[in-house]
């Protein structure tokens, strides 16, 4: 007996679908139309079709490729750092946390603070006169780097992002780690396997799906980064910290280049869909 008939099911889905079509479907359509039009704030409702000119001008824009490169490097490096540190913390701290789960709370606190807020906080932390980090570096070593200048901004942002989001990777890994059945581990210990062999041959393979998922979630979040970078440096440091999201934001709000911003949006959309469906396809193949 089906609890919910098909037609009824559709009715339950309808409000959500309608809402998504209005707030995501319609904008996606507008994006597509505007991206092949000459459009400015004066002729928003009657854009004139103009072919692929907007795409051409984005693809010829050096700043666009700089932004793509920033987002790509930022996404990969932060995801790697977060997963490595998170994995270490999850496994090394597991015996500590097993009996004292309240210790999780301070480890998870960074996830509860808005990334934009964290970005603002680091303005204070790294400020050359008011910030404690430069203060102590001067006190102990007599010198402190300019954390947000063109040479260091990228590295600084990597550290900022990694410190905030490592807890997320840690959390995923810790849950996967404690979910490994005790008898699997005990059997290996009984056979006299040393801990690093148990880790490498038994525990890590069991955690592999979680490792892959965590890496991709963190990569995607790093790739589309906006809040903390914008709050900390804007696109500052000579444009060296313009992520793809910031590029689109600025093309629209600072330059009023609607066509350019929209064409870049469509390309980002297509790229993220390609990655997502590629991943789903891979996951589907693995299952079979």
């Amino acid at each position: 007996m089906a609890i919910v008939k098909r037609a009824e099911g559709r009715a339950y889905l309808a409000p959500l679908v309608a809402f998504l079509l209005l707030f995501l479907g319609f904008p996606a359509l507008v994006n597509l139309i505007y991206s092949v039009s000459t459009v400015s704030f004066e002729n928003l409702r009657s854009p004139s079709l103009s072919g692929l000119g907007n795409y051409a001008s984005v693809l010829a824009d050096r700043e666009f490729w700089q932004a793509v490169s920033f987002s790509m490097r930022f996404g990969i490096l932060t995801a790697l750092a977060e997963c490595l540190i998170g994995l270490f913390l999850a496994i090394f701290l597991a015996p500590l946390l097993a009996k004292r789960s309240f210790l999780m709370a301070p480890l998870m606190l960074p996830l509860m603070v808005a990334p934009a807020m964290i970005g603002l906080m680091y303005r204070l932390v790294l400020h050359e006169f008011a910030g404690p980090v430069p203060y102590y570096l001067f006190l102990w070593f007599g010198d402190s780097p300019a954390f947000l200048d063109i040479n260091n901004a990228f590295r600084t942002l990597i550290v900022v992002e990694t410190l905030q989001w490592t807890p997320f990777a840690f959390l995923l890994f810790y849950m996967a780690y404690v979910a490994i059945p005790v008898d699997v581990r005990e059997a290996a210990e009984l056979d006299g396997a040393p801990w690093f062999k148990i880790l490498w041959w038994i525990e890590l393979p069991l955690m592999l799906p979680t490792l892959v998922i965590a890496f991709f979630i963190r990569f995607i979040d790093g790739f589309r980064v906006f809040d903390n970078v914008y709050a900390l440096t804007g696109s500052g440091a000579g444009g060296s910290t313009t992520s793809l999201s910031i590029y689109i934001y600025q093309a629209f709000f600072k330059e009023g280049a609607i066509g350019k911003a929209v064409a870049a949006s469509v390309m980002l959309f297509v790229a993220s869909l390609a990655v997502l469906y590629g991943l789903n396809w891979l996951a589907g193949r693995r299952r079979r």
Partner: protein
Amino acid sequence: MLNTARWLVFAIATLAMNFPVIVTLVTSLKSASELSINPGLWISQPTVENYLRVLTHTDRFNIYSYLFNSTIASLIGTSLAILLAFPAAYAIARSEAGKRTLLPVIINLRAVPLIIFAIPLYMMYQWLGLLDTRLGLGLILTIVNTPLALVIMVNAISDVPLELDEAAKVDGASSWQVMLMIIRPVVRPALVTTFIFGFITAWNEFLFGLMLTTSQAVPMTVGASFFFAASGGGVQWGTASAVMMLGALPPAVLGLVMYRQISGSMTAGAVKG
């Protein structure tokens, strides 16, 4: 010995990851005169004058209005997401409708950078008069919250034994009644978790707050950055720190109280999706 090392690693990790919050808390408790000579991590004369100033001098930047806007927009964004996602989750869990197409699309939505939709949404809001309104911001936050809300609730409803529904059906209940009177009470914990987690996510959102509000509906995350705009004589670090602490407090308190439930929902999409 090994245990000492674990405690040490725990202490270092906690300090490093929470460092900006600690620094901001310390700075918010320093007087203006102490700030100019002591950027370190100790306070010789703690004071709450920064908090008093933020809470009483509201003529230029009104923190109450930012807190109020964030609260209302987050409540709309969370409640509406649950209202839309709960029946949908019920249909997906209990019938074939939407399982193959809608659910994967919405799960993937979590990974699509929402900036993609930002420009058309901005124009749409301009036509509809939703720019700079709490309702407009709340509607966007609904979009932000929907994917995870749906995943958590589909998982929760799927875990409810089918016999419960069937028994009610035999007694003559319609599926609508089953959903509201049988399923809803059973999955109440999941609804609460979704609500708390959605509220935190909505409160912490920044991009759409920045783009879609200018003065009347500015949320806390955006309002906090106003205190950094150089206003002659540079940033008032004590004031700015107090603002950041007050702005970060609601989600942090909710998160610390509910950390067990939240860790579950944060990983829901990753583990089961």
